[in-house]
């Protein structure tokens, strides 16, 4: 990845920060980046779809097909990795 792409695509910290902010606003509690959101005592799996829609809107990505699985939304870290991979693919530096 070259410097141009690094400035065009969002960086991991910015993505993670935005996802944490969204989670905290929606759930009125704080979360750790590695915390399993859907573990016992956590969020309803129905909330996962809100996360999908929010990521698509905030980062201009389309989450489809094999990417639509709960494990990709289980932690803030996993969501960050997904967004980076999809924006990377969209800007062409992913080799597509």
């Amino acid at each position, binding site marked *: 990845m070259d410097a141009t792409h690094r400035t065009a695509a969002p960086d991991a910290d910015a993505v993670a920060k935005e996802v944490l902010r969204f989670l905290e606003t929606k759930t009125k509690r704080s979360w750790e980046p590695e915390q399993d959101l859907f573990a016992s005592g956590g969020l309803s*799996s129905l909330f996962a*779809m809100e996360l999908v829609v929010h990521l698509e809107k905030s980062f201009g990505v389309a989450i489809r097909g094999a990417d639509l699985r709960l494990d990709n*939304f289980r932690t803030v870290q996993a969501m960050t990795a997904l967004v980076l991979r999809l924006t990377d693919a969209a800007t062409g530096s992913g080799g597509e």
Partner: protein
Amino acid sequence: MTTGAHRLAVLGAGVMGVGITALALAQGLPVLLIDIDGAQLDRARRRIDDELRMAQLMGRIPAERILGELATATSPEGVAEATAVIEAITENTELKAKALADVSARVAPGTPLITNTSSIPVDELAEFVDRPAELVGTHFMNPPYLIRTVEVIRGTGTGEETMTRIGSLLTVLDRQPVVVRDAPGFVTSRVLHPMINDAVRVVQEGTAGVEAVDALMEGCLGHPTGPLRTADLIGIDNLADSLQVLYERTGDEGCRPCELLLEKVRRGELGRKTGRGFYDYQEEN
């Protein structure tokens, strides 16, 4: 996987019509979705797409599955081709009776007519169809593709052949039926709806806030989502209609829709489907 030759027609593109359609498409069945309101059908197509994505997200659609084909129509003529018709229109006896009478006159004899009612007794609706033996009730929970158990209501006049056919349809849909006798609200609505009404009343009386009520019902009593979040998922207008049906038929004061519930309906705060109910579902940015 074989789906036999099932071709489903669904009447009503509201919350449950959309959910049942998504379930059937996810299981590979073709569906004709009918609603008198064309704009509602356009919204339904988007919602069905969202529900299918949600079903995929939850791992309910195998990778190799070929989804069923969706057709929509504003007139009911196409029901003649269906192997089963599911009616999921507004929870109102007159409207349901009219729709079922119309469909009954159009389908081939032997086609099961399935009313997806929350609380109106099947026997009341049976009076309006051409062949009462073909009418049976189901009560799918929302979202249908996530909740496998389906309450099946056998009316007094429901025929054996109809019970066999709905059993086969639910097997193809990978659902688990539990058959009960006909009565206002059957089992699930008769037990759940007055409970939700009480939860709303507790909030109305100021005993606790919405979040506290759900947190207690979840944390102490093991309710999966909390009664008020469930109300938002059902649709508060539908819940009030269902409670009214129960109240009129049982005389149980606990079923009389409480003031806060009716106020939500007047304000158009109907739950998830309108973006706001007891909780807020709108994007905050």
